């Protein structure tokens, strides 16, 4: 290694190296330019705006740390929305991980017509956003919705779902299963990537189905779980559309998700500076949680080829 470094670090840098560097920048430039204009630049602007008051139509006026002080000490809706989002994530992330995994196990069976089943289970994930929210509004309607009618069939009086403070978050957790198709496909790919010889070796050692599952399948799938967990954390903290369309934060702020609260501050109250501060707080929270998952990964994620440089 050292000798190669010496050879490469000779003062006369080859024109080849320079050409290669140029070629790199050239090929990467579309992404680089896009990143600068639409991500890096706005992030910097947002950071600057979080220290100001800005309503778009008058120039921003510097206000120091006021926005951050306000949101940490003087705004109980911030804590309410964090609580709502936290509860939702606590329900939705494990439920999503487990359900997608179970579905993937089912989809991995060698049954005739399995391709059709896979399509059916994936299809809801393709339709997203507002139409899905409207659809769920009908399903969850306490008087006319099919969910409560189905429950009544077995003798249970269904709760008021979106109109009840205590059931509105479970309703959204339930709804989050709509997009289970995407993680399911990823699990499926992971399951199919598990080498058969491991199962055969386990069988030779006398492992039954359950042992095979816990000692071969799950360890091999942990990188996928890791990936889906991080995606799940990021996604569930940013939930917005269903709350915006269906409940608008109600009843009594019981479904005021953090993303919705941010949206209200930005585009209903036009407090752009405050909204930017909220956005950065969300950024750090998601970052902290993601780092938590990443740092914990050596303890439970198993990489067949050894860790190497596999971590983020």
């Amino acid at each position, binding site marked *: *290694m050292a000798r*190669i*470094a010496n050879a*490469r*670090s000779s003062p006369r*840098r080859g024109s080849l*190296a320079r050409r290669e*560097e140029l070629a*790199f920048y050239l090929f990467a430039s579309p992404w*680089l330019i896009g*990143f*600068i*204009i639409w991500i*890096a*630049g706005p*992030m*910097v*602007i947002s950071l*600057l705006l979080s220290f100001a008051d800005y*309503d*778009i*139509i*008058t*120039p921003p006026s510097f206000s120091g740390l006021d926005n951050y002080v306000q949101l940490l000490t003087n705004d109980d*809706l911030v804590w309410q929305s964090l609580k709502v989002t936290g509860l939702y994530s606590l329900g939705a992330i494990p439920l999503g991980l487990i359900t997608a995994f179970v579905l993937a196990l089912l989809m991995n069976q060698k049954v005739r017509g399995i391709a059709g089943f896979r399509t059916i289970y994936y299809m809801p994930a393709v339709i997203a956003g507002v139409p899905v929210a*409207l659809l769920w*509004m*009908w399903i969850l*309607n*306490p*008087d*006319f919705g099919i969910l409560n009618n189905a429950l009544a069939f077995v003798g249970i009086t269904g709760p*008021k779902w*979106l*109109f*009840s*403070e205590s059931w509105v978050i479970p309703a959204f957790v339930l709804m989050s299963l709509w997009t289970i198709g995407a993680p399911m496909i990823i699990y499926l790919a992971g399951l199919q990537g598990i080498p058969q010889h491991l199962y055969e070796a386990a069988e030779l050692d006398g492992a039954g189905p359950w042992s095979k599952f816990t000692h071969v399948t799950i360890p091999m799938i942990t990188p996928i779980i890791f990936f889906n967990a991080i995606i799940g954390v990021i996604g569930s903290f940013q939930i917005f559309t269903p709350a915006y369309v269906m409940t608008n*934060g*109600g*009843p*009594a*702020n019981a479904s005021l998700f953090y993303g919705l609260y941010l949206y*209200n501050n930005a*585009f*209903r*109250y*036009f*407090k752009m500076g405050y909204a930017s501060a909220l956005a950065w707080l969300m950024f750090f929270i998601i970052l902290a949680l993601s780092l938590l998952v990443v740092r914990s990964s050596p303890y439970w994620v198993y990489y067949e080829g050894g860790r190497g*440089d596999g971590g983020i």
Partner: protein
Amino acid sequence: MDSSSQLHPRSITRRRLLASSFAVGSLLVAACSQPAAPAPTAAPAQSAAAPTKPPATAAPAAAAAPAATPTAAAAAAAPTTAAAPASPTAQPTAQAAPQAANGAPVVPLLRSSANEIQFLKDDIALFQKNNPSITVNPVFVPGNQYNQKTDLMIAAGNPPSLWFPASDRGFKYYSAKGLNMDLDPLIKSDNYDLSDFYPRGLKGSQWKGHQEALPISEWAWVLFYNKTLFDNAKLPYPPQDWKDATWTWDKYLETAKALTVTAGGRATQFGAGLPGDSRDFFSGWTHGGWWFNQDWADSGWVSKFQPDPAVAEALQYWADAANKLNVAPTAAAEQSSMAGAPDLFMSGKLAMSPNSIGNLAQYAQITSFEWGMAAWPHPTTLPAHCGIWVDEYSMFAKAANPEGSWAFMKHMVSVDGEKIYPMSYGPIPSHQSLGQQWIQTWKDKMPKVADQLSVAVNAVPLQFVTPDNFTVNFSPINDEGIQPQIDKVYLGQLTATAAITAMKPKVDQQIAETTKGAS
């Protein structure tokens, strides 16, 4: 752990790449953001005064982003802005040549729904016919994007000439920032007659005593009732007379109970709907109470949250009607109409519905039962019964063609203009003299309620103006202060009195925040 750095000390690492991207991004930000434009920051300092004569450079400088195209329009307007009605003495010269060679187009930003767009276009066409030298380039935008579009146009340095508020945030939001044009000098120099406008709409269009908007339409609220259901229950119809003191809210509740039919534990027919079919702010108004300080019209905005006892009474009344007495539909039942099904009144399931005449065009299509319009019950305290939605036009001080915009505004709120819009669209025109003509127009459309249309016209003088006319920015006040507590009342968790007490701190905070720069 970058193995690449071991290979070549000066090679590109991920870290360096990201850092340099952010650095370049920051440089771009610094380069693109203009220094704070002197003109806009000076504007709030003269909120009640006439607009400044913006030099040609102010408009581009006001752009938060490097917007090159608006400067062309602004530059074209520059020579003529010197003739802007900046002071009364300049008026005669400006108005002497109303069709002055001001080539800049008048750009009204109009809320549009499929139904109203044609009427607006016809009105604009009439104006163009009478004023061929003024170009009008209307921008139509759906109601739910109206606020954003307005702000974006202003931020780009190209404010609309004429503005037509469409939601909670009315023209006062811009008045508080000194962006609206004070119409008093224009009214004075033209000797413009304001006497025919409904007084409350006119008062709501003022800011600190100055006229900063002119009302165009009044959406009165009446009591729609299902004649067929009344006949079936052998009950007398509700009265047409707004001053009928026997038609009280207690009587309303009794009538509602008699008209509620339950089958199998669930109501199949409701006696009475909630005001406007919504569980919100308006519920507090029906018994004559007022949520804020009475002298708000002096400044133009409410500064204190001090609900009358009648507000709590009204709120409790409606919550009980919905929860305890089950005469009113639940939120769930109404949600079906939100998601696209016809509303309960149209389906014949609601006997009485206190609602806006905005529903007239829809109800005109009802064929399965007979319906009528009546007066709201008489509260024990007067003067007003409930809200009325007043639409107004206002002008931005930095509009490209102030004389043309003023001529256009005058036309749209004139008797001739209002005969086209809003006469046939639905709401009552803001000119009192047009009341009878409105009745006549809708008699032809809805012969069955021909003799009851006067109820709507008679309602206008009795009703309050709605939040956009007395707050700077109602959304945060309502969303954070009022609505969550009202939700709790309708959920049965709080009494109305307790809810109002709970509302006060947040409402006060939001009033203070939204009116920070106003005085």
